[in-house]
């Protein structure tokens, strides 16, 4: 299992001397769903992007990123893109493409010079189906709801990797802007995809992370504060230290609920 897992070693991203990600070391094994949590501006999204090979303009990146023992950070962009797929946060203004066209974009790193490759349709269909987005295939992205859009983006990420072994899936705030029904459905889908590959997602909702993720990595100001099983990482003390709020954690068999209060000073 760990042979195909993700290892992040002393990763740092600096822009003009300021560290957005600072000496971060953590891992995400295959077959597990890992949640990256932390306050706004902690560097979660920057970290995901850096693993996918995307850094801000004029940023310096340091450290190593390994997937199955191979160095992603030293790989040519196209080769890396065949192993790592990133689903960005839902943004305003979807591009004017149909769902199928958007999913087909996942095949980009497999294309040769002329942007044409045989067998694309097969991969695209399989990915659409695996993400439960097949009925959406011919609809314009602009007409889709947030939850449907996330499925299409997941399908794109799957189309990016299909071919050889399942690769790494990075999801930035996949449950953002979704109502509870869509959230649960999406998490179910993500869990299923995490069965045979490492999946890392950033989330703001700590209770959601504690309930659905196998592992939690807590990040603050670019540094990893703690990582491990949710119940070990998400303690009232750590939440107070990182977020500056009092938390009351209520663990039940059906899931975790957390109540927050402003700190009594």
């Amino acid at each position, binding site marked *: 299992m760990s042979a195909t897992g993700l290892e992040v070693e002393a990763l740092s991203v600096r822009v003009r001397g300021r560290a957005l990600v600072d000496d971060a070391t953590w891992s995400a094994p295959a077959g597990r769903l890992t949640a990256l949590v932390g306050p706004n501006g902690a560097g979660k999204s920057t970290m995901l992007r850096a693993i996918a090979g995307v850094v801000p303009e004029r940023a310096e990146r340091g450290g190593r990123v390994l997937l199955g023992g191979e160095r992603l950070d030293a790989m040519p962009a196209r080769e890396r893109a065949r192993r790592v797929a990133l689903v960005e946060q839902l943004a305003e203004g979807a591009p*004017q493409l149909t769902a199928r066209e*958007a999913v087909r974009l996942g095949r980009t790193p497999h294309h040769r010079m002329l942007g044409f490759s045989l067998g694309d349709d097969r991969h695209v269909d399989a990915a659409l189906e695996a993400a*439960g987005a*097949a009925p*959406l295939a*011919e609809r314009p992205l602009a007409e889709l709801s947030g939850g449907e859009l996330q499925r299409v983006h997941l399908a794109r990420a799957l189309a990016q990797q299909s071919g050889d072994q399942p690769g790494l899936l990075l999801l930035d705030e996949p449950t953002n802007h979704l109502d509870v029904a869509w959230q649960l459905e999406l998490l179910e*889908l993500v869990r299923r995809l995490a069965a045979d590959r490492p999946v890392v997602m950033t989330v703001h909702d700590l209770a959601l992370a504690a309930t659905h993720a196998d592992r939690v990595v807590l990040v603050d100001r670019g540094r990893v504060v703690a990582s491990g099983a949710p119940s070990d990482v998400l303690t009232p003390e750590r939440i107070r230290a990182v977020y500056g709020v009092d938390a009351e954690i209520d663990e039940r068999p059906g899931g975790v609920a957390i109540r927050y209060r402003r700190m009594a000073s």
Partner: protein
Amino acid sequence: MTRTERPAAGRELPAAADVRASAAASGSRAPIAAHPTRGARRRRSPALLLALALGGLLVIAIAVAASAGPAGIGPLEALGAILARLGIGESPLGAVDDAIVVDLRLPRALAACAVGAGLAIVGAIMQALVRNPLADPYLLGVSSGASVGAVLVLIAGLGVLLPVAAFVGALAALLVTLGLAAAAGGATPTRTVLAGVVVASAASALVSLVIFWGADGDAYREILAWLLGSLAAITWPTATVALVGAGLALALLPTGRLLDALALGDAAAGALGVDARRTRWALLIASALVTGVLVSVSGAIGFVGLVVPHAVRLAVGAGHARLLPLSALAGALVLLVSDTVARAVFDPRELPVGIVTALIGAPVFAALMLSGRVRT
């Protein structure tokens, strides 16, 4: 996005709603959808049909353009003469009429096709690169630079040098734009576009100054014709330049997939292995160079590069693998028809084709807007 698709989309809505309702009811358990490939190829055939239709119309338009005019030659005879030069059959025309068709009208018709196709491709690319529907081929100040060169030689009475001077002006404007962007802290796409705006307004101020100071009578009319765009002076050598420009534009067609990837956002494109900054920058420069070549032949013809991509997008959607080649065909057709109208309808006078493209294009596009099919 065409009307015929609306009912199909509507038919699929209940299925999606069911998925969601069942998810809400069971609390979890996302059902895997059961219709993997339904309607998979549906969108491809309208694009193909449109391509065939545009191609057919283009051949007809070339025949009409080669026959329109005072010599009284029919379109089929003109087509026969053109085919004869390609080694197919024999020319049905006498030597004089044959020369009128093949040596006078054909180069102009081909130049119109080449410039129209090139401008439409480059316009579509520019709109995608800067994510702005108002972008056109003249974004980096290329046409304004070309105008400076053109106006200077026209004022000096050296009209023969016009294409060369225009291309030099276009190239100079591009270099100044890139230099300014680089000096301002790195030639990123945004800075490059801003620098282009600066260079364009400086150059057009320069053009106005030169006209105001030095032009009178004929020179003024000549300059105005060039500024509005005209194909009146096309000969085989300049037509060849236009065809080379169109060839360069056609070489950009395979970048359609990259443009689609860029539409997802720079980070998402990067995660697909596409270096967004480098791709955007390289395509900006390539597009500006193509524009420079085209403008040196025809002047800055407006509207084609701006509106044709929008019109095609209405018909086949925004996927660039279809948008770029269809824009090329539509651009060629629009400019050829406009130029033929500019030449034949107002006989014996001739209008600069830029006036006709706007006169025809504006109401057509307004009609498209009023039909509710423009999505902004």
